[in-house]
């Protein structure tokens, strides 16, 4: 039973990680990264490491995607210098 759960959690992590790599748009990637963080937290819980799972849940699912989303918003709001060099980019 536990082995089945571990295999399922590992498969979910592999699927989400591949999905995160294959997502080109950074804003969408942040959301996939958040789901990856959630599946990693599940994996750590199944492996009986609730302390690590809690850290992963906070940092990987909430803080990191939020930092990426805020950075994307800032970069899109001010297309200076980069925009000067490449008009139309």
């Amino acid at each position, binding site marked *: 039973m536990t082995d089945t759960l571990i295999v399922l959690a590992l498969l979910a992590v592999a699927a989400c990680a591949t999905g995160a790599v294959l997502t080109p748009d950074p804003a969408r990637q942040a959301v996939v990264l958040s789901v990856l963080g959630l599946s990693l937290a599940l994996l750590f819980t199944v492996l009986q490491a609730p302390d690590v799972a*809690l*850290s992963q849940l*906070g940092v990987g699912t909430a*803080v990191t995607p*939020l930092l990426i989303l805020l950075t994307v918003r*800032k970069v899109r709001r*001010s297309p200076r210098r980069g925009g000067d060099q490449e008009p139309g980019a």
Partner: protein
Amino acid sequence: MSRRVRLLLLAGAGLVIAVVFAAGCAELPPFGSPDHPYGERAVAAALARHTANVVSSVNFDQRAFDTLGEESILFASVLGTVIVLRPARDEDRQEPEPARVLPSTRLFGALLLPVTLLTGGYLVAHGQLSPGGGFQGGVVLATGLHLAYVAADYLALRQVRPLAVLDVADALAAGAFSVLGLVGLVAGAAFLSNTLPLGTFNTLSSGGLVPVINAVVGVEVASGVIVLLAQFLDQAVEVVDR
């Protein structure tokens, strides 16, 4: 460096890592075996110091010096972000406008904000007893506070986020970790060794130095993450080019 050289370098480095990793894994005990040489010693040491959560005992007692390094890394990265993301000379601050929010979203935030803050506080306070601790609880406290931004707007978040206080709290808590290490030196033992009274096993005050360092780390992580997110939020919401 040409593309060819870079690919060759990548292949070479990958090969070295694959060989060393495989050799390292070959010596590991099999997955899920009942034999845990490190675990048994860590559990025995944690129980001897009256700390119910073995992970906290490892983090804040047996390997407290490692945690001091990690906390310093967090503090340094928050400090670096504050310096790098400060408004530059060619940038202005624009007052954020009140945002329209659905009443249901506002209700959701108002109900959940105290619940998440309580959860974070619980995780920090019970770090020496149950899964969780200063780091996990601190992150929950910091992210929970941002429900004010999600469920209301940036003006509401600024009201519940005393940044000037949190800046100082972050620095004081980071320094307090090192100062707490001196307690061991004063008692005639090593830096960061657990020399405080150990208390009754499985009570809030048990574990000697563990709950004290745990609380200090909770303050540092909570205020550090809030300050870190504040720099990013300021840049995304308030700071505009001149």
